C-alpha cells in the first residue's frame, strides 16, 4: 500500500510538472504559429527563438495587481477560476501515455490509474467545469461577464451532449469504459487497428468538433468574442486569476487532444510497440502534438460562428449525426456477429 501511494504521488508530480510546461509552451507555440500564419515574427526576443517567453510572461503576471472589483461576490469570484482549473487538471490521471515500461527493476504502467468508469470520469469532469465559467460570469457582476458566462455555459452543455453521444460508438467497439482497455482493443493490424480507420470516422468527426467547442476554441470562441463581449466571462479577472483561466483553457485543449488520441487514434498504439515499449510514449506524444497543432491552425483559419448558427449547428447537425453514428455502429456490429 505504501509503495503504491508513493508510486501514485510520483506519477502525479511528474504529470503536473509536464503538464504545466506543456501549457506554457503551447501558449508560445500558438503565438509563434499565429505570427507565421499572419506573416510576422511573433515573440522572439526573450531567449533563443523566444523560448523563455513563457517564463517572462509568468513573472510579469505574478507581479500584476490583483483586482477584486467592489461589486463582485467576493468568495465566488475567487473560487470560480479554481473550479475551472482543478477539473481540467484532474482529467490527466486516467489518460494512458504509453504501455508498461521497466524502470528500476519495477514494471510501471504509463498512466496514473485506470478504473472501470474511466471515460465517464472524463465526461463528468467536463460537465463539472461548466460551474467555473457560469460562476465567474455571475460573480463578476458585470453585464458582459454575465452574458459571456451564460453563453459559454449554454454552449458547453449543448456540445457536451454531442460529445457524450459520439463516444458511444467507441464503447460498442471496445465493450469497456476503461481507457486502458479501449487502447488495447485497438492493437490489431500491427498496432494500426485504430477506431478512426475501422468504424468510427463519423464518430471522430463529431467528437473533434464537439471537443473544439467544449474547449471554447475558435470557431466556437463566442464566450470571449471580444468584438461583442470585451473578454466574456473573464473580463474582470486580472493577475494570476486570469492566468488560471488561460491555464484551464489550454489544459482542456491538451486533454481534448489526449482523449481524441486515446479513443480514436489508437492512443499509444503503433507499429513496433510490442517489442519496444518505450516507443509507445513517443507515439502518444507525437499524436497529441499533431492534435494541438491542428487546434491552433484552425484558430487562425476559420472565422467565428454567430451565436444562433452555433446553437443550430450543435443541436441540428452534430446531435443527429452522433445518434446516426450509434445506430450504424450498433447495426453493423449486430449483423457481423
Amino acid at each position, binding site marked *: 500500500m505504501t509503495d503504491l501511494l508513493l508510486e501514485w504521488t510520483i506519477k502525479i508530480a511528474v504529470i503536473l510538472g509536464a503538464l504545466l510546461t506543456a501549457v506554457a509552451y503551447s501558449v508560445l507555440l500558438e503565438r509563434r504559429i499565429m505570427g507565421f500564419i499572419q506573416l510576422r515574427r511573433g515573440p522572439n526576443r526573450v531567449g533563443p527563438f523566444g523560448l523563455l517567453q513563457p517564463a517572462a510572461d509568468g513573472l510579469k503576471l505574478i507581479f500584476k495587481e490583483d483586482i477584486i472589483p467592489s461589486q463582485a461576490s467576493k468568495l*465566488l469570484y475567487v473560487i470560480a477560476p479554481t473550479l475551472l482549473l482543478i477539473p481540467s487538471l484532474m482529467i490527466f490521471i486516467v489518460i494512458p501515455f504509453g504501455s508498461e515500461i521497466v524502470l528500476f527493476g519495477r514494471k510501471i504502467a504509463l498512466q496514473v490509474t485506470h*478504473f*472501470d*468508469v474511466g471515460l*465517464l*470520469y472524463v*465526461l*463528468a469532469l*467536463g*460537465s*463539472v467545469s*461548466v*460551474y467555473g465559467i*457560469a*460562476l465567474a460570469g*455571475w460573480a463578476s457582476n458585470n453585464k458582459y461577464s*454575465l452574458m459571456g458566462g*451564460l453563453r459559454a*455555459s449554454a454552449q458547453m*452543455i449543448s456540445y457536451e451532449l454531442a460529445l457524450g453521444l459520439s463516444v458511444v460508438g467507441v464503447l460498442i467497439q471496445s*465493450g*469497456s*469504459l476503461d481507457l486502458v482497455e479501449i487502447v488495447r482493443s485497438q492493437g490489431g493490424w500491427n498496432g494500426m487497428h485504430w477506431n478512426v480507420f475501422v468504424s468510427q470516422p463519423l464518430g471522430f468527426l463529431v467528437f473533434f468538433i464537439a471537443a473544439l467547442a467544449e474547449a471554447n476554441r475558435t470557431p466556437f470562441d463566442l464566450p470571449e468574442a471580444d468584438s461583442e463581449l470585451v473578454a466574456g466571462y473573464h473580463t474582470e479577472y486580472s493577475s494570476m486569476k486570469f492566468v488560471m483561466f488561460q491555464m484551464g483553457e489550454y489544459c482542456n485543449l491538451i486533454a481534448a487532444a489526449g482523449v481524441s488520441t486515446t479513443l480514436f487514434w489508437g492512443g499509444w498504439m503503433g507499429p513496433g510497440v510490442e517489442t519496444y515499449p518505450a516507443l509507445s510514449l513517443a507515439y502518444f506524444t507525437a499524436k497529441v502534438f499533431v492534435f494541438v497543432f491542428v487546434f491552433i491552425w484552425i484558430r487562425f483559419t476559420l472565422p467565428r460562428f454567430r451565436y444562433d448558427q452555433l446553437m443550430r449547428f450543435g443541436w441540428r447537425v452534430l446531435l443527429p449525426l452522433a445518434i446516426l453514428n450509434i445506430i450504424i455502429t450498433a447495426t453493423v456490429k449486430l449483423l457481423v456477429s
Partner: protein
Amino acid sequence: MEKALFIIFAVVSVAAALNILLQRNPLYSALSLVGTLIALSALYVMLRAQFIAAIQIVVYAGAIMVLFVFVIMLLNAPKEAPYIEKHKALRFLAIPFAGLLIAEAFYVIRLVKPIQMPASDDSAQAVGTTLSVGTKLFTDYLLPFEVTSVLILMAIVGAMVLARRGED
C-alpha cells in the same frame, strides 16, 4: 484507512447539507448541495457502486444542478426575507420534529443485523461495474427503462409549455 475516509466524506456531506439551510442566497445553497452530491459520490465508490458514483456526478452535479444554477442566475431573485412572515410556528415545530425523526431512524438502525460486505470481487461481473449495470438493466429491468423514455418525453413537453407561456 477506510473508516477515516468514510468519516471525512460523511462530515463533508453533512456540513455541506447544513450549509444549504444556513445560506440566504439560493445560489450558495445550490453550490452546497453540489458539495454534498460529490461527497456522496465518493461514498458510492467506497460501496463499490462505481457506475452509480460516476452517474451521480454526470447527471446530478453536471446536469440537474446546472439547471438549478441557471434558473437562479436567470431569475436573479432577491435574497430570502430574513424572517418568516407566516407560519412562524412551523420553525419551532421543525426542531422537535427533526429530533423525533432522528431518534426513530437510529432506533431502527440499532436493530440492523451486522452484515459483512461481500469480499472484494474483482471480476468484470462484480456488482456495481458498468457491464453488470448494463446487462442487468437491459434484461431484468427492461420495462422501467422503456417507461423512462416516455417519462422524459412528457417532461420535455411539460417543461416547454410551462416555461414558454407568455413568451409567444
